[in-house]
């Protein structure tokens, strides 16, 4: 069976992992160690000089984390990956490789609220200037491009509204401008959407959500698609120019089509420091083994619940791309034929107060600031995740005052519907 292309579920269980050579352990061991002994002085020097592949110190790499990296790289169809401490850390590390102070990147306005904050405040303090584009208006991405633009950033399925982005159209804008497209694939996971197939050059994840899937571990990850040529026009000196940190090595020349992942590791993670705990990597890996099964159930439940809410007299509107007639249903059919994900919003006829009452009446849904858990979750974005935005920006981000966000878990859908029903009439 040499050279058979294995399916997604096989890769979700096997990619990156192999029985431990020393003990035969079949599950991936947790290499809970800070450091790794060298064979001799020359081996140490080779590792530090990037001349050999191997382990030095867990801030730079760890064998448990490496299994996670290869697994997600395989699921996304990328050349390599790097695991970091959180989704936010992944975004910092990626942009550090691409932008110098004074540079710009264009980002879709429909993003996780925390990312909007990170871009507007933390990144501006680094001199990385975000230019916002309207997710639904492709021309606005093109209008945002300037000679200092170094990347475009979008979410495949956007938080909080669960809206679908036309990845291919944005990729075309990015490539015309000669910059890479970065796609946050957190809410879709590669089971629902593989952004690289649609033109993404870099994929980022908050592993905290569906990939880990059990609400127990923070984690983030960067996938290198291996598609972008960093050597053109001196635009990306971290990749194309001799690096003083490594005695003059040129990263792209040395590492070819996984150079971006290496740059993120040896220039980003090494120097900024947001390393992922191997224990978290282990829990997330265990989660990924059941990703296909969980995503099927998440999507099936989300569809049933969106239909229930759609028919409920207290509900003003339901924004779920999986519903026929939804504004994003055509994009969902194209990009996410297996399901439109399990995070969506709806608005109540009773407005803000009805939203607050609903959240407090629910008994099975947990009121908290996360998505992508086995458990069903609820939140009122306007007063929490998106609270730092002004009212107009909240509406543009899909988080107006009357909006409630759900993240549907893998419980029995009948129980979830019964809980919503009692809470809406309560």
């Amino acid at each position, binding site marked *: *069976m*040499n*050279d*058979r*292309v*294995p399916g997604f579920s*096989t*890769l979700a269980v*096997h*990619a*990156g992992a*192999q*029985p*431990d*050579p*020393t003990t*035969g352990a079949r599950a991936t061991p947790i290499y809970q160690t800070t450091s*790794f002994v060298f*064979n001799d002085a020359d*081996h140490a020097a*080779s590792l530090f*000089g*990037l*001349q*050999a*592949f*191997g*382990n030095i110190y867990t801030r730079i*790499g760890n*064998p448990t*984390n*490496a*299994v996670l*990296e*290869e697994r997600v*790289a*395989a699921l996304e169809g*990328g*050349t*390599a*990956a*790097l*695991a970091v401490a959180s989704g936010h850390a992944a975004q910092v590390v990626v942009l550090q490789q691409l932008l110098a102070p004074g540079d710009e990147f264009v980002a879709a306005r429909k993003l996780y609220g925390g990312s909007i904050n990170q871009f507007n405040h933390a990144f501006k303090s680094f001199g990385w200037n975000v230019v916002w584009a309207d997710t639904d208006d492709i021309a606005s991405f093109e209008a945002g491009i300037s000679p200092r633009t170094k990347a475009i950033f979008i979410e495949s399925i956007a938080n909080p509204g669960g809206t679908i982005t036309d990845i291919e159209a944005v990729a075309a804008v990015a490539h015309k401008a000669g910059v890479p497209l970065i796609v946050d694939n957190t809410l879709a996971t590669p089971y629902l959407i593989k952004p690289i197939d649609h033109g993404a050059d870099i994929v980022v994840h908050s592993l905290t959500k569906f990939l880990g899937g059990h609400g127990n571990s923070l984690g983030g990850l960067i996938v290198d698609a*291996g598609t972008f*040529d960093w*050597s053109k026009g001196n635009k990306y000196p971290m990749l194309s120019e*001799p690096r003083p940190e*490594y*005695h*003059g*090595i040129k990263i792209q*020349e*040395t*590492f*070819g*089509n*996984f150079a971006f*992942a*290496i740059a993120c*590791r040896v220039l980003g993670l090494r120097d900024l420091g947001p390393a992922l705990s191997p224990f978290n990597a282990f829990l997330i890996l265990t989660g990924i083994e059941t990703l296909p099964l969980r995503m099927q159930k998440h999507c099936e439940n989300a569809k049933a619940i969106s239909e229930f809410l759609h028919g409920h007299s207290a509900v003003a509107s339901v924004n779920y791309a999986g519903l026929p007639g939804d504004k994003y249903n055509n994009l969902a059919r194209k990009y996410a034929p297996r399901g439109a994900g399990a995070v969506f919003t709806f608005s109540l006829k009773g407005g803000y107060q009805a939203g607050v009452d609903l959240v407090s009446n629910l008994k099975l849904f947990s009121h908290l600031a996360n998505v992508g858990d086995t458990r069903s979750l609820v939140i009122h974005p306007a007063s929490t995740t998106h609270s730092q935005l002004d009212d107009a920006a909240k509406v543009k981000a899909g988080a107006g005052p009357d909006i409630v966000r759900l993240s549907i878990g893998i419980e029995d859908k009948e129980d979830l519907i019964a809980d919503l029903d009692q809470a809406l009439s309560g």
Partner: protein
Amino acid sequence: MNHDSYPDDYIRGILNGVKSIAMVGASPINVRPSYFAFKYLLQRGYDMIPVNPGHVGKSLLGRPFVGSLAAIGRPIDMVEIFRSSAHIMPVVEEALKLSPLPKVIWMQLGGRDDDAAERAEAAGIRVVMNRCPKIEWGRLSSEISWMGVNSRTISSKRAPLPTQGMRLSLNRMSLGGGATTASDRAAKDRNEVS
């Protein structure tokens, strides 16, 4: 041979089969990719010969430099060309004068000359272009997985006990059609090189 994408078995067969490798363009500067690859392959047990007329009289990691392929004076299995695409043809012409001929001509990542490849293949020589043998060795053994690289192989077998902290079997199951697409960015002929 389709030089846009190689079956893993082709690359694996070459790396498992050759013993001596003459590296044309080997550099003594320890941050150059050729130095990395030379050292790595030497540590994997290959009989490495650095070829660079500018450094005759010196040696690279204990291996004396020779000035040309002809000056090696003994049969070699593989010629690895660490030169840009524009400088590949003369090296291939030189290799074609060797007796016996080398079994393999390998052009480094970024290096590609389809005419030169055709001439070598007409003489019965296996050709690899635009690939790095260090990366391919690391990938097929999955040792490169330590760096988070997608090896595009899987295995349910216990790995052999590591030497130097690494998984050393090249004989893993290849995925994804088992093709190596290390880089697509090499110019396809000498005229494309800027």
